[in-house]
């Protein structure tokens, strides 16, 4: 992809910049769309209409208007806040999710960096999220923010374990840490004669691994029912209480970027990434991109759908679910997958 760009554009620097900015464009468009979609899904599940006024069809321009509003808002920094860290936190948070996009294979022709330790890189860089949330919370000089930040840290660190265990189960089957390789080995339609070769269909235990993975990515991108870091009702927005205007907007953007990132990771690991579900039919780099985003968006949709179904968990229940259920089940599941791989 970089080579193609360098061929089209004379200056290699500009080509590189464009290459780097592509995921940013994608994430921004996606975030605008996803926030609108979230509101629509929320509204329709509650038999409402949602935004209808701004823009023509079903208020499609609502998020753009919201963004413009956020940009104009006053940028308030609390007097005794640690100014530098306070300002840095949202950008670090976004940078962490953005950096992780570099190893996501968007289509057979486009991957930011096809590194051999892709998955580990991704998991490592996303742990910066915890750091920046905690940083923002601490720098706000506000008890509630700090409490929210601590809860976030506890939640994200705990849920990292089942996430990694379920990712590891996939890697045991795939035998590679490079996400491109993992995707490529899922090409074709041979499982049971008609199903696509996606990892989720290959092994009954991988289905369990997927369920665990999905629960933990919901927790990691702190969405309902695990949205304890924000918890509007008891912590008044938690770690982001003191943030206003576009700084808060960037937190929001990062949350949505995070959702997309983890959903895309899920679709690479379990649903064949950019592979078409119909084998050779509708395959190719462009279609690949389409399929990939579609799979990611379906997972994002399921997260939104869950948000309006389940009530929020208490913090002790959250820990109970993680340490009492998910971790033991994922460990056993991991061993079973390894055994399955040895036998077949």
């Amino acid at each position, binding site marked *: 992809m970089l080579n193609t760009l360098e061929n089209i554009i004379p200056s290699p620097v500009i080509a590189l910049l464009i290459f780097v900015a592509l995921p940013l464009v994608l994430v921004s468009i996606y975030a605008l769309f996803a926030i609108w979609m979230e509101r629509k*899904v929320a*509204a*329709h*599940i*509650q*038999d*409402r*209409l949602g935004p*209808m006024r701004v823009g023509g069809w079903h208020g499609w321009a609502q998020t753009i208007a919201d963004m413009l509003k956020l940009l104009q808002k006053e940028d308030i920094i609390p007097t005794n806040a640690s100014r530098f860290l306070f300002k840095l936190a949202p950008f670090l948070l976004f940078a962490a999710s953005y950096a992780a996009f570099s190893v996501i294979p968007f289509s057979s022709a486009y991957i930011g960096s096809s590194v051999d330790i892709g998955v580990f890189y991704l998991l490592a860089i996303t742990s910066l999220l915890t750091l920046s949330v905690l940083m923002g919370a601490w720098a706000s000089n506000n008890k509630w923010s700090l409490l929210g930040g601590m809860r976030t840290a506890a939640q994200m660190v705990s849920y990292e374990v089942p996430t990694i265990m379920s990712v590891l189960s996939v890697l045991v089957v795939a035998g590679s840490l490079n996400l491109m390789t993992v995707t490529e080995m899922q090409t074709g339609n041979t499982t049971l004669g008609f199903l696509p070769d996606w990892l989720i269909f290959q092994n009954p235990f991988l289905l369990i691994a997927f*369920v665990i993975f999905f629960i933990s990515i919901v927790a990691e991108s702190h969405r309902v029912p695990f949205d304890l870091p924000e918890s509007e009702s008891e912590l008044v927005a938690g770690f982001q209480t003191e943030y206003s205007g576009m700084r808060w907007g960037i937190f929001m953007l990062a949350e949505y970027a995070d959702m997309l990132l983890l959903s895309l990771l899920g679709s690479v690991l379990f649903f064949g990434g950019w592979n078409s579900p119909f084998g050779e039919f509708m395959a190719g780099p462009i279609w690949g991109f389409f399929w990939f985003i579609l799979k990611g968006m379906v997972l994002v949709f399921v997260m939104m*759908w*869950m948000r*309006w*179904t*389940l009530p929020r968990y208490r913090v002790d229940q959250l820990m109970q679910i993680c340490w*009492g*259920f998910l971790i*033991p*089940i994922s460990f*056993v599941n991991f061993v079973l997958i390894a055994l399955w791989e040895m036998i077949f």
Partner: protein
Amino acid sequence: MVHALKKSLVTLKSILTGMKVTMRHLFQPSVTIRYPDVRDELPETARSKLYVNIDDCIGCKLCERACPVNCISIETVQATSDVDLGKTSTGNPKRFWVTNFEIDMAKCMYCDLCVPPCPTDCITMVPEYEYSEFDRNNLLFQFSELSPDKVEEVKEKLEKEQEEKQRQKEEAARKKEAEKNKSEDSPAETKSTEE
């Protein structure tokens, strides 16, 4: 471990049930009415803004007394005998000038208690609900349309008439007294002679 698995299965099942319900609602038609464009027809008995048909009001102050939060204030002046205020549409004769009739809708709690006591059915709830204001004073609804001059006039008239009446009364009383005295004298005499 077995316990954990069992519990997980139950949880998963209930989550799926819930998701099924929300999914069904996702495709149900919305119940929202797009308010400023589309307005819902209010039911006939809806309680909203109060309206007084002041031509029918006989100034009995029953509504004022019925109101638990004292948001109706009525001032009346009795009509002098030379004016005929006419009758209400329900046939009740009107005997008072209603010089001031105010309802403070900012205080009103829409309890509807003022409506049933009205003998002429002139205070009613009308289905009108958009009357938010920036200034609270704009929620003071005035119904009486008498001009201040007119109010003064009727007040003066009433005073004069009352003075007149008072005088007449006093005169009548004096006359009675005199008559009494007169009649008291003669029977006393007859009484004494009889004895």
